[in-house]
């Protein structure tokens, strides 16, 4: 009985640790980032794209792709393993409508464990493009693209396995109307 009472106070602590630690680890490895900190920019933006597609919606949408169509079959194959796609894109009429603090709210999350910055292009004239990947073992389980131009801010957060090469080569093959957010910069001769 002495040994039982000796271990009794430790038991709840042990149970709590067993419950909390896996939860914290799972949270640390979750490649979903919070984009809601950028929502206040929508009031200043000329055009806003806000996409929240979770796993259920991806599966639902995947059923809508026509597998007989080559492009749609390719897209379906690409998205079928994804667990979520979240996008915030803001296009502004004027320069510097967003602050570095806005970018920092996103970057701070991407400094967490699991994330690696794969690409970082800094250009004072054209803006910054950063690509972060979250790895699970040797496989990508999350991608975040942060594109900050003078009049445009775009954050794309993809959760799940992603083939970056195939995703990058989808451009121009999706057959969806141009949203007019491709680039806010005008050629020099027009200016």
């Amino acid at each position, binding site marked *: 009985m002495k040994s039982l009472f000796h271990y009794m106070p430790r038991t709840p602590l042990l149970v709590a640790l067993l419950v909390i630690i896996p939860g914290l680890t799972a949270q640390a490895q979750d490649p979903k980032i919070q984009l809601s900190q950028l929502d206040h920019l929508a009031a200043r933006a000329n055009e806003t794209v806000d996409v929240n597609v979770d796993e259920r919606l991806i599966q639902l949408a995947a059923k*809508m792709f026509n597998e007989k169509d080559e492009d749609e079959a390719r897209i379906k194959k690409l998205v079928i393993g994804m667990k979520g796609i979240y996008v915030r*894109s803001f296009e502004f009429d004027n320069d510097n409508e967003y602050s570095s603090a806005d970018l920092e709210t996103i970057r701070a999350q991407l400094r967490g464990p699991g994330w690696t910055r794969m690409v970082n292009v800094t250009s004072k004239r*054209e803006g910054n493009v950063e690509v972060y990947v979250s790895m699970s073992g040797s496989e990508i389980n999350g991608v975040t693209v942060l594109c900050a131009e003078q009049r445009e801010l775009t954050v794309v957060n993809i959760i799940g396995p992603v083939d970056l090469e195939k*995703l990058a080569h989808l451009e121009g093959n999706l057959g*969806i109307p141009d949203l007019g957010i491709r680039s806010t910069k005008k050629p020099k001769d027009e200016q």
Partner: protein
Amino acid sequence: MNEEYLWDKSGEPDPEIAQLEEILGTLKYKPRPLDLSDQVKPASRNRYLPLLAIAAALVIALVVGLIWLRTTSTKDDHQQITHVERPTVPSNPPSSEVARQDNEQKAAGPVNETKSSVVARNTRRLRSPKVIAPSKEALEAKEQLMTALRLASEKLSLAQKKTQGPATPNQIRNQHKIG
């Protein structure tokens, strides 16, 4: 016989009536407290009996339901699997054979074209495959997904172009190894 005594006990008692009174008087009402403890015992009731009855009823209902479901599904499967056979007819029987068969049929009188014992009929109406119309939610999800993919693809392509100039195959794949 003195009838007055018989009616209201007035007058002289009749000896015969007095004797009867004496005999039956032992059976007359005697006031005493009611005591049922020895004679009548309340029936002993099990407290858990109602609960047991409810539990038993639930278990029986569950078992019956499972059996019914299994039976129904088995019937469905059987109905679906039933293969409808039709009597095979030779594609090009010889004309002499056909003529002989016609003559035999005419001689035998009217006969059903197909024997019911040979043909297995699926009496249950087969369910027609449901045509699922694309829901509004699914269409919106697809639209959102395409928008997100377009943006992601555009920005990734931009990053690729900015980092390594003109795109060549396997550039991003090679970068995975570095990451």
